[in-house]
């Protein structure tokens, strides 16, 4: 049994490599950061196409669409006791931009650079923060981006005590590390919980932050225990060794929902699973082949078995819940049609092709299922299994034929996915923008232009329509076979109250959870 005042979650947290919100970009870290740091604005869970204030009491956008002014709520305090000021917000932005770690582009895409950030993101006074962007972007886009964890507000005073001096170099121009090394395992936030400890591949421990301005968390402590396997999580959940199991697979989910002591909950997440075809392969380059492959996935069988409860069939690149998501699934397993298409491409006799597959479920299962359905049309699929990092390395070097992967939005805005699936400014092997389109040697300048235009469309409805149009065209002509959208599930013990999963990984709040 777990202690009354402690929430214990079994969770695969082996992806965590840092706890610094300016650096972290991993899915599990998102949950930790969101529960321990505050943002200016957060996603409105009632309508995820909108945002609501967190530290910000109110905000306004200038008429030219370039200046965003945020007013902070009064009397805010960090967990350390230091007051939260606009200066902290500005410094957090500066820090993220200057560190220039993985998630920094979410901010720098608005024209921020190390040289201008102090100008473009600055405190007008104690309570007012002003953010200037370089183009008249859709406000929904800018605000959505500000809900990303990289925009988390850190305690400047506290972090300044822990900075490490650095010698400026060609790669890094500043004389200190902005406390990055310390924050990797340290904590300087103002969220509902404070981070007590992170031990890689073992545990993350959060403790209640009594200085939190919002609703006080019910439980004193939250422990995330690294458990990679579904079966293990289920066992531990059944035994009461954990309160929540976070990575259940279909079979175990089933068992959990049937257990009288346990319950299950779920929420669609903005992660899309897809199979991509690299156009470097002459055969895969043919549009008919690409379409044929979309007819060679047994969506029905996969949905009722391999991803039952943990995903739903979804054949477009924008996940449900995001602005402009298109809910259309035109493809079904249709071997005859696929054969016809292949014949049209001159490949009636089939061909051989390889696919790099990570050793995780459900992708391996789906890959094996595809192997069987592709075989029906004469396509011999060779699966190259590999560890996550290994297949990724290959994918990023675009030396694969086919790849099965997932893509989670970098921030909760349609542009994140639209951009990565369409933008490919330099398709050479030395390309600097290694979007998913680049990785598959796919150029679609038309759609790219359309996506860029949508970014500047300030009317939400129009913007949505533009994205839908892109997706429709994408369905007809793209080397991506979208299979399903992830549904995050969790099994929990029935004595938990108010446990809910959010629409994104940074909206899984543990604050409201109570125990009976």
């Amino acid at each position, binding site marked *: 049994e777990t202690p009354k005042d402690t929430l214990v979650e079994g969770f695969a947290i082996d992806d965590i490599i840092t706890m610094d919100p300016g650096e972290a970009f991993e899915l599990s870290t998102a949950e930790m950061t969101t529960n321990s740091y505050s943002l200016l604005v957060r996603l409105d869970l009632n309508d995820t196409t909108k945002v609501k204030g967190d530290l910000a009491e109110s905000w306004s956008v200038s008429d030219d669409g370039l200046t965003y002014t945020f007013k902070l709520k009064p009397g805010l305090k960090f967990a350390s006791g230091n007051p939260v000021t606009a200066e902290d917000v500005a410094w957090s932005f500066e820090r993220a931009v200057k560190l220039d770690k993985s998630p920094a582009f979410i901010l720098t895409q608005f024209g921020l650079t190390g040289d201008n950030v102090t100008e473009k993101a600055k405190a007008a006074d104690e309570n007012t923060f002003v953010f200037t962007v370089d183009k008249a972007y859709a406000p929904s886009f800018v605000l959505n981006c500000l809900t990303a964890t990289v925009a988390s507000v850190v305690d400047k005073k506290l972090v300044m005590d822990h900075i490490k001096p650095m010698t400026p170099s060609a790669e890094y121009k500043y004389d200190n590390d902005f406390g990055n090394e310390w924050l990797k395992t340290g904590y300087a936030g103002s969220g509902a919980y404070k981070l007590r400890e992170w031990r890689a591949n073992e545990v993350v421990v959060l403790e209640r932050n009594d200085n939190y301005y919002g609703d006080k968390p019910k439980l004193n402590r939250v422990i995330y225990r690294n458990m990679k*396997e*579904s*079966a293990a999580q*289920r*066992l531990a959940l059944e035994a009461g060794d954990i309160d929540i199991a976070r990575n259940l*697979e279909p*079979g*175990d989910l089933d*068992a959990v929902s049937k257990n009288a002591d346990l319950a299950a909950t779920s929420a669609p997440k903005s992660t899309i699973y897809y199979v991509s075809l690299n156009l470097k392969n002459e055969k895969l380059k043919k549009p008919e082949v690409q379409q044929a492959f979309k007819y060679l996935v*047994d969506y*029905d*069988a*996969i949905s*009722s*078995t*391999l991803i039952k409860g943990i995903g739903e069939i979804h054949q477009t690149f924008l996940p449900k819940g995001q602005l402009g998501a298109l809910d259309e699934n035109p493809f079904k397993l249709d071997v005859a049609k696929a054969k016809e298409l292949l014949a049209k491409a001159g490949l009636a006799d089939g061909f051989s092709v390889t696919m790099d*597959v990570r*050793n995780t*479920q459900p992708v*391996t*299962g789906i*890959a*094996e*299922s595809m*192997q*069987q359905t592709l*075989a029906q049309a004469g396509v011999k699929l*060779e*699966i*190259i*299994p*590999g*560890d996550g990092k*290994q297949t990724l390395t290959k994918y990023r070097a675009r030396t694969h034929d086919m790849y099965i992967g997932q893509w989670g939005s970098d921030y909760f805005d349609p542009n994140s996915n639209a951009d990565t699936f369409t933008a490919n400014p330099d398709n050479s092997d030395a390309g600097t923008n290694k979007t998913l389109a680049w990785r598959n040697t796919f150029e679609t300048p038309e759609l790219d232009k359309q996506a860029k235009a949508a970014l500047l469309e300030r009317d939400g409805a129009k913007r949505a329509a533009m994205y839908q149009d892109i997706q429709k065209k994408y369905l007809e002509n793209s080397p991506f076979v979208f299979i399903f959208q992830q549904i995050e599930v969790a099994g929990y013990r029935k004595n938990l109250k108010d446990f809910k999963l959010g629409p994104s990984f940074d909206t899984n709040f543990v604050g409201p959870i109570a125990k009976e």
Partner: protein
Amino acid sequence: MTVPASQPAPMSRREWLLSDRPQSRVQARLGRAYVTWRQFSANKLAVLGLIIIIALLFVAAFADLLATHSPVVGDLKNARLLPPGTGEYLLGTDDQGRDILSRLIYGSRLTLFVVVLVAIISAPIGLIVGTVSGYAGGWVDAVLMRITDIFLAFPKLVLALAFVAALGPGIQNAIIAIAITSWPPYARIARAETLTVRRSDYISAVKLMGASPVRIIIRHVMPLCLSSLIVRVTLDMAGIILTAAGLGFLGLGAQPPLPEWGAMIASGRRFILDQWWVAAMPGIAILIVSLGFNLLGDGLRDALDPKESGQ
């Protein structure tokens, strides 16, 4: 020692084989084989091991006839995770709706393939390194033994993992990786044995005939190391199967959908709570086969190894 039979009276086949004074090379060889076989076959467990291995060979050879289903194509929608004995699925089905029995039957080929290939690669390497190092002595010995030590000091599975990672997954690479990690022990055995015979009079005697070192190693030293090596390799077959299965278990052995037993356990592991058979069946298969090899090796040790056969 005993009084020799003075007349070559008509003998039974058994007497012919056991004859004290064979008349030809063939008879001498057969006689020796026969004595070894008798010693071996007196050990019931060893015979059981042999039967298991023969059965494995049989199953592998006639997999096409024995299997009732395709090992790779399943019925995901309708026949997923069926328990043993459901309809035509004697041992149940796995998560792709494939017949487990058929997969096991075809998997026996892979198992044999791995085992035989590793044995073919690593035993000769070990034999050569060991005998050369033991016979030559001096710096040759020092260098070869250091290399052996390095490979020994490296955690075995990690080394195999690293090599599989470097070479890319696939059963051939798994074999190479296992072979790379498994020759050092053989080298050690061969060296130890060589060291004991190196100074013996019969090797000196061959030297006195004017034989070159290469000839001595190949024709006189190696045959001596061979029987203990064969015993060791047989005993290691089980270990090879287990290592291959371990690699498969860690997702680095065979490529899907190949019915490699270790990989089957790995994928069945997710269902171990509700559909135990998916992981249990390949586990039992591995257990039986490696037990077979172990029993066989154990029997061979008793029969071949003069030290163990004792009294």
